[in-house]
């Protein structure tokens, strides 16, 4: 029995493929989106009675293409612009194409083009490739539907007016452009994994979507180690998702119930990290994935190989220097050489606006038996985060001093 829920899931999974192929064929994002929506309506009408066709993506693409052609023919009487479009229409059947020819790859690079504002890249990617609706994206990023709708409309207008190409960048431009795409996917994941504000500490819809899109990207670019690295990083992080909260309170890594980590995500993530090691073209995402691999491989928190983690962060720091990476290195150093050495490293960093800098100081000060200083550090961390689960955890730690 096909339910509306099944259809919605299939539609979301196929949305990127359907829209991407229609954009290439009709050269217009709006036409493609409208036609895809009409094809969904047709599916909702027909599939419950007829059953889901063997190739639902193909069915949706063919149906959407027919709808688009109908619409263009109707409007061509009124609008000469569409007459031209109608001339280029062909009736080529939907053929499954190889990864290199996959239109979704073109679409990802268009949606994540550096000439678009970063928040527009995220929104367009979720809308066109993820098949999320405008209200869904708006609520995920806590902005009004009107604002999100305008953001997407503006981005689509710029793509058309400035002629942002619908093309996979040339090999020499690929690394630079790919890093922009990965940044968008990681941003979506992080917003889901540790929501910056709002009642829900984790937004599974966003983490799941980021992982799904990263899988698509990996299937399209299987030899790019940073794509594998990002997917591994997401999987190894997501594996610990349910262990991260207990009764609405954040549980830090050391205190998590390791038995409740997702074994299949860990297995897949570790395999990807091994694959990256074999390729030996390290990058920022691969190194972060490797750090997470060390954590998830430890049977207990006490078994964690902190020297390995410190080495990985040193390597990451030389590749992409940032005070946040230095902070993570300092945490590993504190485990290896004691809290006083760790605190000295932490105090050298200019991160006074970052809540985890204060939270790290608080923990190290606690271990150094300086409860008064630790208390002020917890307070400073609390003043800088709106995530409720984190706030509860920090409050509890402060009050247990």
């Amino acid at each position, binding site marked *: 029995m096909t339910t509306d829920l099944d259809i919605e899931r299939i539609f979301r999974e196929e949305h990127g493929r359907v829209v991407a192929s229609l954009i290439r064929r009709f050269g217009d994002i709006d036409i493609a989106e409208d036609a895809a929506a009409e094809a969904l309506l047709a599916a909702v009408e027909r599939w419950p009675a007829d059953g889901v066709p063997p190739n639902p993506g193909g069915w949706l693409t063919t149906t959407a293409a027919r709808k688009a052609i109908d619409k263009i023919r109707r409007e061509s009487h009124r609008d000469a612009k569409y007459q031209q479009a109608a001339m280029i229409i062909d009736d080529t059947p939907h053929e499954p194409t190889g990864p290199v020819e996959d239109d979704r790859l073109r679409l990802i690079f268009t949606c994540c*083009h550096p*000439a678009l504002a970063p928040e527009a890249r995220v929104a367009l990617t979720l809308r066109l490739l993820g098949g999320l609706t405008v209200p869904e994206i708006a609520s995920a990023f806590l902005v009004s539907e009107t604002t999100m709708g305008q953001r997407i409309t503006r981005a689509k207008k710029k793509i058309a*007016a*400035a*002629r*942002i*190409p619908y*093309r996979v*960048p040339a090999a020499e*431009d690929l690394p630079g452009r790919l890093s922009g795409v990965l940044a968008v996917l990681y941003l979506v994941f992080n917003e889901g994994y540790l929501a910056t504000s709002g009642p829900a500490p984790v937004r599974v819809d966003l983490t799941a979507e980021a992982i799904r899109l990263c899988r698509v990207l990996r299937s399209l670019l299987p030899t790019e180690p940073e794509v594998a690295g990002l997917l591994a990083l997401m999987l190894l992080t997501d594996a610990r998702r349910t262990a991260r909260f207990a009764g609405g309170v954040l549980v830090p890594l050391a205190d998590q119930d390791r038995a409740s980590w997702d074994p299949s995500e860990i297995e897949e993530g570790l395999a990807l990290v091994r694959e990256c090691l074999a390729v030996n073209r390290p990058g920022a995402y691969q190194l972060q994935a490797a750090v997470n691999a060390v954590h998830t491989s430890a049977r207990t928190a006490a078994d964690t190989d902190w020297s390995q983690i410190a080495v990985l962060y040193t390597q990451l720091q030389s590749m992409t220097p940032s005070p946040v990476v230095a902070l993570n290195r300092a945490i590993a150093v504190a485990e290896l050489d004691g809290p006083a050495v760790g605190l000295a490293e932490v105090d050298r960093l200019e991160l006074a606006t970052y809540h985890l800098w204060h939270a790290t100081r608080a923990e190290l000060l606690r271990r150094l038996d300086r409860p008064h200083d630790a208390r002020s550090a917890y307070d400073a961390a609390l003043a800088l985060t709106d995530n409720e689960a984190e706030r509860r955890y920090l409050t509890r730690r402060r009050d247990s001093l």
Partner: protein
Amino acid sequence: MTQYMLSVHTVAGEAEPTGEELQRLYAQVDAFNKKVTDAGIWVFGGGLEPIEATTTVDATGTEPIITDGPFAEAKEWIGGFWILEAPDLDAALKLAIEASAACEGRVEVRPFQPE
């Protein structure tokens, strides 16, 4: 092909290039101009006189009004521009990267409306 305007932005208070620096800029820009002309994508371009030479004309009312200076008190203005033809934005951005390096200034890329 789309026509793009690549405009060079001058910010108030920034030192004007002089002497050898100016000679170097001219040479770099000449080389870029020759390249785009040889490629057949040059439409038009040139450097503008300083902002002080601007006059604003407003004929939107019953009588035309002519005033000294730019339309708005701006902190930055166009120092010169190119109009070049490019198949898409990626190609235009590549040209803009070369243009920005040649004139040692920030370059804004804006497409023309289709005819």
